[in-house]
């Protein structure tokens, strides 16, 4: 019996390195009374936002704890109801914290790096089980990395340009500069009509979401 304890413990730990991509949540389906979807409609655009600030939501969908990995994710959907293509300028979009603090968006590469860095399983296994565990864990980490990267690429909000009548949807990642509990007051998404000069900012007030490690 004692001979089995080692392999069983190892297999249990090895299982922790896996990353199972969760299915993309359907914003339309979640737009019921209990949904935390926020919608702003203007004369040329519809912007829908679902915050994924809770550890439970972000963990289930993206495998991260927002505070520990310093990533604040939201699901964004933009519907172009205008008569020309629209550009979504994510690099100039931000989360408003209190009155004077703004958190910028992260590039997909930055978000993936942070998500992978917040996972320390391989190091832990090496300390606990030495070289054999390290080698097996490293190969498991290769598979986990590849799965996570592909999943993040699938889920990321990719369309910079959205055509007339078109919709863009995906996850946008924001930078959390410091690990701390805080309250986000709003998200601002910047857009621009391709045939116009002035950028348009759509502000979505976030009423209840608090970023915490729980």
């Amino acid at each position, binding site marked *: 019996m004692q001979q089995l304890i080692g392999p069983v413990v190892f297999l249990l730990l090895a299982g922790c390195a896996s990353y199972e991509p969760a299915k993309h949540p359907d914003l339309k389906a979640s737009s019921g009374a209990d949904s935390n979807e926020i919608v702003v409609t203007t004369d040329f655009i519809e912007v829908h936002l679902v915050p994924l600030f809770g550890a439970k939501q972000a963990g289930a969908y993206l495998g991260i704890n927002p505070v520990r990995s310093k990533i604040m994710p939201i699901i964004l959907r933009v519907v172009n109801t205008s008569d*020309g*293509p629209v*550009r979504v300028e994510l*690099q100039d979009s931000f989360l408003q914290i209190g009155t004077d603090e703004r958190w910028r968006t992260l590039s*997909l590469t930055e978000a993936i790096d942070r998500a992978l860095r917040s996972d320390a399983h391989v190091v832990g296994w090496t300390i606990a089980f030495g070289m054999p565990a*390290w*080698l097996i864990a*490293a*190969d498991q*980490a*290769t*598979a986990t*990395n*590849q799965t996570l*990267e*592909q999943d993040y*690429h699938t889920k990321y909000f*990719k*369309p*910079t*340009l*959205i*055509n007339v009548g078109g919709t863009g949807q995906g996850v946008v990642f924001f930078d959390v500069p410091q690990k701390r509990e805080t309250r986000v007051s709003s998200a601002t998404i910047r857009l621009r009509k*391709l*045939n116009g000069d002035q950028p348009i900012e759509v502000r979505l007030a976030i009423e209840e979401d608090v970023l915490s490690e729980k």
Partner: protein
Amino acid sequence: MRVASVLAFPACLAVMALASGCGSSTMAVDAITPSLTLQPDARATTRGLKVAIEEFTTTRDKNKKTLVIGEAKTGFFNFPTDIVASESPEHLVASALREGLTQTGCQIVDLKDADFALGGQVQDFWVSEYATGVSLEYAKAYVRYDLTIKRAEGNTVWGNTLERYETSGQCWDATAEDIPTLTRALQHTVMSVLQDDAFWNALSK
């Protein structure tokens, strides 16, 4: 005896490093030419569609040098090595689109003679490797750019973001897979837009 055993490990590492090469700081790539196989499209051939391809701009990270399109991990210690192309990503994207449009039957002409002008902005054009030195590796490439169609008078009638994330299979040394993986990503974006009805509808207006 004790000194010899202490020195044995670094000596072995040095021999392995010398045998495998320490990795050079750059790796030059001659050409990135996606293999496009498109049939002539009636929407281009019957009208004798004349298209100009404008110079693409880029929003790629300013820290990345213009011709550096990726980072390989080379040598025994997986040294980071710049992959340097002979042409910029903006030029490579425009060339691939030009080749694809020509195959569909469009005439590529100067801007002053064109019915429509295609242009855009390259946001990502990068290949790198997941390589830890102790486990299987893979190459990963990401190509993403905006493509717009403008009428001769300058009004934008269509715009879309084309993107493709591509990985190689897992292997012991992924460096040989870097350029094929990047080329496949570029190829997919061009093929996808030239098989998109919305793209052709915009060119028919």
